[in-house]
């Protein structure tokens, strides 16, 4: 019952955590009862396509899960931008982004403080507020576009999204195994989100060139980006544009999963090469020429920031290498999956 497990997993993701197991257990029982009824009616087991059609009738898993939410929180400025279905995801993404940003800002100011530079509360506050407005604007824009799509096309969904390797014990006497699924169709939400995110990143990268404040905050008064960033700027832009091209192609042809797999492998390899050259550079920020005051102090501040960047790049390189190997392995194993489930692929195609 692959499609049932995938459907339940999609619903589970959007359910309130406290009731998740109980709801999935009951929903699972309802689906299985309905399928057994159909089986008895038809006098034969249901095909995968027929199972998917029954699930399709139950509606978008996100919308189904939303009905179980007691709270009705939403984001609205005049008209509703983000409804209760997407609100929990919106909050999660926004919290993650802001948390990460504040950690980076905190690290920079901590490094400045440790190196003996004056750290003013006003500087911290202005950096945090600037990032807050940027993140709030971008994340809200992306989610309101997804919300618009969801409202306009509630029936456009399929069960072919990427799933994590999760096993849910739903207490029905056996574990519902929810293995890693190879995507049979790339979600259009995903493609649109990537295009928007990459476009925003391009604008930001261009602006950072002229305005290092956007990345260094107030530290830009006495620190500047090392020449290596200007050397890798073009390759990074090229990789970002390549990702936009790939997402645009997959927006038109969501069924080109093999294309995405191979293409992304090259893009990720390119990214890893950029990280390699960055690590080799050894220095990523230096004391700004315009900095007044203690030159030794600024050099010390740059040294501490460089130390943090070094660790950051190292972690990025390791994660990228692991992901690259995982992607390559998945790609090699992919044909066997395809041969095993042609009907699912067809049903998923119809769903979008």
């Amino acid at each position, binding site marked *: 019952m692959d499609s049932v497990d995938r459907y339940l997993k999609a619903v589970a993701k959007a359910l309130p955590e406290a*009731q998740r197991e109980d*709801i999935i*257990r009951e929903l699972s*029982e*309802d689906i299985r009862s*309905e399928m057994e009824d159909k089986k008895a009616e038809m006098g034969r087991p249901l095909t995968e396509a027929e199972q998917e059609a029954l699930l399709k009738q*139950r509606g978008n898993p996100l919308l189904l899960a939303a*009905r*179980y939410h007691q709270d009705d929180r939403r984001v609205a400025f005049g008209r509703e931008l983000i409804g209760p279905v997407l609100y929990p995801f919106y909050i999660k993404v926004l919290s993650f982004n802001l948390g990460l940003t504040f950690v980076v800002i905190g690290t920079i100011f901590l490094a400045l403080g440790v190196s003996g530079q004056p750290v003013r509360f006003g500087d911290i506050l202005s950096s945090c507020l600037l990032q807050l407005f940027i993140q709030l604007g971008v994340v809200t824009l992306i989610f309101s576009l997804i919300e618009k799509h969801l409202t306009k096309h509630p029936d456009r969904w399929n069960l072919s999204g990427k799933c994590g390797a999760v096993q849910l014990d739903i207490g*029905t006497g056996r574990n519902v195994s929810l293995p890693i699924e190879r995507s049979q169709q790339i979600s259009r939400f995903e493609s649109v989100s990537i295009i928007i995110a990459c476009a925003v990143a391009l604008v930001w990268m261009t602006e950072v060139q002229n305005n290092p404040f956007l990345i260094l905050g107030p530290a830009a008064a006495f620190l500047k980006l090392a020449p290596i960033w200007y050397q890798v700027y073009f390759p990074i832009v090229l990789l970002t544009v390549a990702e936009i091209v790939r997402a645009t192609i997959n927006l038109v042809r969501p069924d080109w999963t093999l294309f995405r797999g191979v293409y992304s492998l090259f893009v990720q390899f390119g990214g890893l090469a950029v990280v390699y050259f960055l690590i080799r550079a050894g220095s990523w920020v230096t004391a700004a020429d315009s900095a007044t005051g203690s030159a030794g102090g600024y050099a010390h501040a740059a040294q501490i920031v460089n130390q943090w960047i070094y660790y950051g790049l190292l972690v990025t390189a390791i994660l990228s290498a692991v992901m690259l190997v995982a992607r390559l392995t998945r790609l090699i194993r992919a044909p066997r999956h395809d041969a095993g489930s042609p009907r699912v692929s067809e049903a998923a195609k119809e769903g979008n």
Partner: protein
Amino acid sequence: MTPGTNNHDMFENLRLELRRGSLVLAVLAALRKEHYGYTLRKTLEEKGMAIDEGTLYPLLRRLESQGLLVSEWREEEKRNKRFYRLSTDGKVILKQLLAEWQSINSSLDGML
């Protein structure tokens, strides 16, 4: 948006509003006899009150949290199922709601 579409949407909203209250009554009435989710859905459908599972299960949870229903997981035909039935409070409320329903019904009959 055409006036036709507008009227259709308006009718649909009002219809849903009208149905929402009746569904609670129908579910409470059906649960005078014990049911698990799927058979309850089938029973309601057979009586002309079709309800999709996305509406029924959240409603059952709400009614249970309000103390009108009680439920228990039990094995039947080698499968675990959650059985619902009216609680003592639920029986009292159902009686009051039915009286209210009949009063509304007779008032409307006099007007229509």
